[in-house]
């Protein structure tokens, strides 16, 4: 097995030069990348969501596109459109911004469900169809979507079934005062991510992704993981538990985390740590809770409590 520790550490260091004081967020981003997953960043504006996506793309020697989602955005604005070419007397496909390795979908909840679903379809199938033609997307392919939890006016919240397509939902959060000071001390003239040099080729990412499949998960850990999933289905606080796709996602994420941490086998710690991040957007909090509380934090707290009740294999 190729030594995976070194390249992963290199990306991590590269990104943390830009995103200060958030090693966990960077680690989870890498987990999503290696697990062939997509990331949903949910946080207030201005904490570095775009910067995170940008610096990841810069570190990877990969193409990067950003789509600003608005209410008048059309599906063809994402996937591309066939245009009649007068010289050739034929329709020609003009690929949309989704033909990139890292795609930042900014404020995904601002656009209509139709446009949302065109993106989400592409995410799950890694290909798009326009005019009966199928076009494969670039590999590696990762969507980093953002949404703003503070604003609700004029938004179309993603339904749970669509949220399921994202491997994990993350918050970045404000940096600590010290770290924030470092950000301010930086020269303001140019975008911080522009400085970054790529440390990994696209092929390296694909190799790392293949290695995730080889990470060993011991039988009792699989059972532990499933009993956590089972607990979400049985809890009174949850009206809809984690699906099998959710369990599969957790398993992949856990293996990726083990690889990111330099192991070729999983530990119970990995599962316990990732469960809230990977599972919280896949459950429906029961209606007995007030609407205000059925938020991201509430779901995360429920998963955390459930995990605390499942015994770890010894």
């Amino acid at each position, binding site marked *: 097995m190729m030594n995976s520790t070194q390249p992963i550490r290199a990306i991590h260091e590269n990104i943390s030069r830009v995103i200060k004081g958030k090693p966990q967020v960077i680690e989870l981003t890498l987990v999503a990348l290696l697990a062939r997953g997509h990331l949903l960043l949910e946080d207030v504006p201005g904490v570095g969501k775009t910067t995170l996506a940008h610096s990841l793309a810069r570190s990877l020697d990969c193409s990067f596109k950003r789509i600003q989602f608005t209410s008048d955005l059309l599906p063809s604005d994402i996937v591309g459109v066939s245009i009649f070419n007068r010289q050739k007397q034929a329709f020609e496909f003009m690929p949309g911004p989704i033909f990139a390795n890292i795609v930042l979908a900014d404020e995904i909840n601002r656009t209509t469900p139709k446009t949302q679903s065109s993106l989400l379809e592409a995410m799950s199938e890694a290909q798009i169809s326009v005019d009966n033609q199928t076009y494969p997307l670039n590999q590696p392919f990762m969507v980093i979507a953002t949404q703003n939890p503070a604003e609700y006016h004029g938004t179309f919240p993603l339904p749970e079934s669509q949220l399921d397509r994202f491997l994990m939902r993350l918050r970045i959060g404000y940096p600590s005062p010290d770290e924030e000071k470092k950000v301010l001390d930086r020269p303001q003239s140019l975008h911080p991510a522009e400085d970054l040099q790529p440390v990994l080729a696209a092929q390296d990412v694909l190799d790392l992704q293949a290695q995730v499949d080889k990470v060993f998960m011991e039988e009792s850990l699989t059972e532990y993981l499933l009993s956590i999933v089972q607990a979400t289905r049985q809890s009174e606080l949850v009206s809809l538990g984690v699906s099998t796709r959710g369990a599969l996602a957790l398993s992949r994420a856990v293996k990726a985390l083990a690889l990111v941490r330099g192991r*070729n086998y999983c530990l*119970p710690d990995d599962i316990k740590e990732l469960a809230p991040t990977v599972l919280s957007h896949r459950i429906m909090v029961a209606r007995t809770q007030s609407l205000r509380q059925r938020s991201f934090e509430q779901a995360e707290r429920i998963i955390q409590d459930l*995990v605390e*009740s499942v*015994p770890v294999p*010894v």
Partner: protein
Amino acid sequence: MPCDQALRLTSIVLASASFVGLVLGASLPGWLIFLTASALLVALSRTGNVTAITSVVRLVTLSPTTWNVLVLSGFLGFWIDSLWISGDLLTSGIHFLLVLMIIKLFNLQHRRDYVHLFAISLVAILAAASLTSELWYFPIFLAYMLAGVWTLLLFQLTKDAAVPSAAMRREPEPLESNRDVTPKMFWMANGLAAATFGLTLVIFFVIPRVSAGFYQKGYGENIRTSGFSNTVDLGSIGPIKRDRSVVMRVELPDRQAHEVGRFYLRGLAFDRYDGRSWANQLSHRRSLSEDSPETFTLRGSQSHKPPHHGPALRQHIQLEPLDTPVLFAAPFAESINGRFPAIQADVTGALYLPFPSSTRIEYSAVSRSNTVAPADLQPRPAAYPELFIRHFLQMPVQSERIAALARDVAESKQTIYEKAVAIQDHLSSHYRYSLDAPLAAQAHPLEEFLFDRKTGYCEHYATAMVVMLRAIGIPARLVTGFLATEWNEYGNYYVVRQQDAHAWVEVHLPHSGWVMMDPTPADGDSAVGTLPAWHTVQSMLDSVRLRWNRFFVQYSATDQLAVMRDLQTGSASVRLRTLDSLAALLRPLTAAFETGIDSMTSGDLPHVVKVVGILLAGCGVVAWLVWARPWNWPRRSTGAAGDEQAIVQLYRRMLRQLERRGIHKPAAMPPLQFIRIIQAQWSTAGTAVASITELYCRARFGGVPLTREELHRAQETFHQLTSLSRS
């Protein structure tokens, strides 16, 4: 193997042991045996996670209500069964018990289900105990006890593990435990079982017994014998001559193994022959006087003349339950010693119990055979009293041919004895022994035997001799009994089987009294064609069975009293007795060993090779068990089991150590997170704990075997931690 899985396994073994006990002890309907056996198999395969069966079982999973309905209908069936079908409370109870067992086996999920299964098994093994006194019960009981100790141990262990998780989830959880059955535990449990068994033995011999097996009486079927009733048709012994079931075992304490040969056990004597069947018209019985406790003596029953006796012969006899009250002994019994309410005898010297015994009985007898007096070797006229003429010279319809033959054979001889011997020799040399003789269908079976077919078996020979003797005026009678030929060299006793049933002749000589004669030639094909090794094994087993009967089944309150008395009078005799008993129990083994040595020195190589082969195979199995440790197997698939086991154990010990220190690891806390807790709460131990945890994680979850050095290092780190916690 994880504890919960092991518990399931031992529970099923427990149930199987009691089930086998019931199957062997009671006659159960075939469908019930089949159902229970398949339920056990299915339960067993679910333990082993055979997916195909598990999925099938999942298909037939029924709701709790359905199961309850099943139990209720089973209960209803029990009453129907006990009132109309089997009509017996015990039998129908056993049927119901098995139905309950089947239902439980399909429902083995919660801890209370296990408790129910244990209770059912206990009742079943007790029921089996009450139904039998056979040797096979012993290994089954051993298996039951071993499984029982295991099960209780595992039940307790899983209880510790199941309680906190159940409390946390607020719902009844299936059994869950992550503990493993360690080799240490394996030996401990087996040792515990052995200790329990030892204690049981002590209790068995010491605790006063209130009663003998309650259900045993009248339950088992007595062996059907032939030839020991008041009338015996000619040819009735024939059909049982191929029945190998054991009728009795006879020990001869005064005889050495090399002195043994054909050994006669006398049962009944018959005086009247009507051409088709024999009858005993002198069957009027009188009770024998009990001289000293449990000793019954015959006095002057033999004859009014002082007979010439041979030496006294002592016999210890274990008689299986027969359908006849006749007691057997070598001819002619003088006294019987046994725990009987009374013993009766008729004029011919046959001995009877008041009624047929339904249990195995044990008694000793002293016999003396008559030898021919010198006076009988000289020709003298004999005058017989009226009784003799009426009974022992009685003839069926006179047959001239037979009388002519008799005269012909005995013509040249002078004395009665010589004449009798001549007839005996004539019969045994001119006629062929065969079991294929047809039953007494002809009008004159005797003439057919003597003049036409010239083949027959003991009854034909004996009858012919008696009739011929009577035809020339010599009083004679027919005797039925057993002719023992099978000597068990491991236990030094005769095994007497149904096929040894025999008939012979007693001739009355004027001065000697009744003298035994046997015209039947030795049976040429008596040896059954079994392998010598198999025969050895059977003989050894049978000798163990004799001792089992004597020391366990027949062991009664009186024996206990004897032991107690000995305890009071002095420990030396007790020690001797114990040694004797032990030696007696071990004798088959030593005998086998000696035989092995003997045959080795005498060059009987194949037999030696077999014995040595069996021994080697046994050693091989033990060595394999020690080396391969099959109890570790389920985990072996994921990595080096030995090392993994060791480090996991070490990790658990470390957790216990930390617990003593007051740092508890909650069940839901993963190992690395726990390191951070340790570093926060007891920073000096942080490195040690981290180092052990790292190795543990790698071996336990990484499937990476530890090297010896790493394991050694982990152990040293643990010792450091121990000393750290002491300081």
